[in-house]
């Protein structure tokens, strides 16, 4: 009888849980990027290669091409705005659950320049816990809210209310759209496994963008205008932690700066070399190979503007071409060849693109 009295006392908690579920149902997108990534990941077995990183990774690496050309079993764990700690978390999870041999950390300099977005982290972790489901999911939730960065802080509570951080907007129309999609069980249909026939959505890779660069605003919209010139100290420290983590576990880690159109490299000419040197120095210290595909020579891969949606993201066709060439590149690397010979130095690159550089300087002065 006493227990009923306590249930009566705590009945508002049930209301709160119901309100939370209702708001999550209405506000959380039916098929968010993190949810799709983890959902697809848990459908995979015996993976031996993963790609981690933010949107440049998610939109740039097609695992099927690697599977076919390198005879591996790859999965793309990239998600939008994935900060270094989440990339490390993805690696950690994959290492625990699979026999991973190669990890490609796909980045742009920008990945180490902006502050981590708390919502992205929470969405990433929450999606993982949910896709695991059951007791495993509950354990994943507990392990996150008791992790050192979260313990005794606000996010340990916020994590339990997904509508706070995983949302498109709070408009009624979006809520109706989300609810309709969920009620029609579209969420299930959107799971990666069910989309085998769609090239734009496969094994974590998501890029159905066929657009090309808008040349009207290349000098206004580029890495120079979007990001800080130098790396964020906190992100660099996290990056080093990731390198140390992989070294400790004896994983073949490849740090890869995904290709950017030439105008984007040129726009950052004042500090590009410094960024490059800093990253090379850090990676060298941990014995990790670092490649900047913006500076790759055409004999391996020709970086062409038609392959980009904007100053840093590849379009679908661009991703396909890039992945095919990257496979050849990795084969050469595996044969023991010195791969540094296939890259220009920053100085050489700027010399080759002198016209672009002058155009940019003129624009800057103007």
């Amino acid at each position, binding site marked *: 009888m006493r227990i009923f009295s306590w249930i009566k006392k705590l009945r508002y908690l049930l*209301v709160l849980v119901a309100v939370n579920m209702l708001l999550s149902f209405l506000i959380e997108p039916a098929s968010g990027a993190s949810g799709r990534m983890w959902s697809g990941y848990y459908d995979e077995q015996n993976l031996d290669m993963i790609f981690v990183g933010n949107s440049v990774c998610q939109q740039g690496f097609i695992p099927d091409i690697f599977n076919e050309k390198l005879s591996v079993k790859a999965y793309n764990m990239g998600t939008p705005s994935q900060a270094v700690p989440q990339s490390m978390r993805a690696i950690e999870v994959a290492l625990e659950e699979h026999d991973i041999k190669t990890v490609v950390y796909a980045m742009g300099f920008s990945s180490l320049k902006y502050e981590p977005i708390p919502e992205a982290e929470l969405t990433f972790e929450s999606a993982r816990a949910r896709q695991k489901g059951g007791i495993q999911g509950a354990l994943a939730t507990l392990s996150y809210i008791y992790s050192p960065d979260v313990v*005794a802080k*606000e996010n340990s509570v916020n994590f339990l209310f997904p509508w706070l951080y995983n949302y498109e907007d709070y408009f009624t129309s979006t809520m109706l759209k989300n609810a309709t999609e969920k009620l029609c069980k579209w969420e299930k249909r959107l799971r990666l496994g069910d989309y085998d026939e769609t090239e734009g959505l496969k094994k974590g890779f998501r890029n159905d963008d066929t657009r090309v660069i808008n040349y009207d605003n290349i000098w206004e919209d580029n890495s120079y205008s979007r990001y800080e010139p130098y790396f964020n100290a906190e992100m660099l420290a996290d990056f080093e932690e990731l390198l140390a983590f992989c070294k400790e576990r004896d994983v073949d880690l490849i740090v890869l700066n995904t290709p950017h159109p030439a105008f984007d490299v040129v726009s950052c000419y004042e500090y590009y070399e410094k960024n490059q040197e800093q990253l090379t120095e850090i990676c060298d210290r941990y014995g990790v190979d670092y490649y900047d595909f913006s500076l790759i020579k055409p004999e391996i891969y020709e970086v062409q503007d038609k392959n980009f949606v904007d100053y840093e993201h590849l379009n679908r066709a661009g991703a396909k071409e890039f992945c095919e060439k990257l496979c050849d590149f990795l084969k050469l690397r595996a044969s023991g060849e010195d791969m540094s010979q296939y890259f220009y130095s920053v100085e050489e690159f700027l010399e080759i693109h002198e016209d672009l550089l002058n155009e940019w300087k003129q624009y800057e002065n103007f």
Partner: protein
Amino acid sequence: MINFYSIQFVTFLVIALACYYTISKKKQWICLLVASAVFYYYTGVTNFAFLLVTGFTTWIGAKQLSLESQRIAELRNDKTIDKEEKKVKKEVILKKRRTIMWGVLLVNFGVLACLKYLEPILKGLGVIDDKNVLGLLLPLGISFYTFQSVGYLLDIYFEKYEAEHNFAKYMLFVSYFPQMIQGPINRYDALGTQFKEQHVWKDEAATKALYRIGYGLMKKYAIANILAVAIAKTFDTPATDFSGVIVVFAILLYSAQQYADFSGGIDMVLGVSELFGIKMAENFRQPYFSTSLADFWRRWHISLGKWMRDYVFYPFALTKPMKKFGKWANQKLGKHLGRVLPAAIGNLVVFFIVGIWHGAEWHYVVWGLYNGMVIALSDILTPVYEKMIKLCHINKNAAWYHVFQIIRTFIVVNIGWYFDRITNVVVACYSLKKSIFKFNPGAFSQEYAIIFDGVKEYAGLMAIIGCLIVLFVSILEENKISVRDRLYKSPLLIRWGVYTFVIVLILFSCTRVGETGGFMYANF
């Protein structure tokens, strides 16, 4: 430190409450002591040492003082020795008591001063150039528990009550976990005695305690944390020279932030304590409805004000030189000045200490002295006001006059906030000047966009809703209407509606700003 807004604190609280109400009623204080030790241990092991030093020195000092008092009483009743001998012996004991009292004060204020002021002073003298070079980090709540323990020692010195003989029980008074973050500064005769009582769970009291915690969280997250971003943009970016209108606006935001942060935190700790059936000292009573600055300080940080009154103001006013000065002023300057001048000096001393207590920076000293001077001048000029009111035929009981007094006090308080918030006295004076002579209201919309740049969508709306709720509750409380009682007695649907609204508001507000650190007063 465990944040109150965290799963870990909720877990800790639920476990502590479950143990507290299920174990033997006589052992409840032990449960609280263990909980307090766990809570404080989480802030760092070295902090524990400081807490123990304060606890032990004040406890043993007070015990010794109590013994000496007993000896004086025995001496008084001793018929075997003559009057002269009694006088000599009493003098020796009194001297010993003074030595003990000053010795313990020296140790405790010495530790506090070293931790709080040594680095800024060395930095000011140019001996060190980095603020944290000595690595002296302030243990959580050191100012609060030092003042509380010293208050206890002085109460025993002044023989207000008996000393506590059980060290563990006394340590609970010093380390009681809800008060460790930002006070209030409790008194032993009010708090210590409650630990000895037996408490039973009461649904109504617990529900009302939860209301208070929720209200505090709402103040902290929907108001203080959101406004902090815009205020910092205004005052912590020296390169941007904002117009007077935005400076005034930011100061008004600061008055809201400061109140919401501090009183919100106090609401939380008082609410948590109420869950254990322990009522701690109130620290706020609608301060922005004060009708004078002196009244404001009786409503703002009440426990510190009372501490200063009892342990600084009165003892200072009763010193021989001050008594002499009072007599002299009475004879030479008249009855009114003879009464208010010593009090004015006392107020200046008190507010100078309050300023220094806030930090070893000049702007705090100026802020403290500004408050002291306004109160002192207001006392001195009372006859002038009275005459003016009479001449102008003003009805002091009229509602409009009451509102005028509130607005006037609010302005006076806000002028003080310039020196509290702006860390450079010259810049604070310049900002004050700008507020009057370079007001430039036309720049508001443009500069408003600058200071709120980076604040996420809906955050401003959350802060406005939060402020309106606080205003509404404050008006009711000022009119002696208990909002908690009203809410508790209201129909179920209304209650659940209010709970849900407040919880959603808190959660939503919390994610509108990133980590903004803890409470403003947690570093004192």
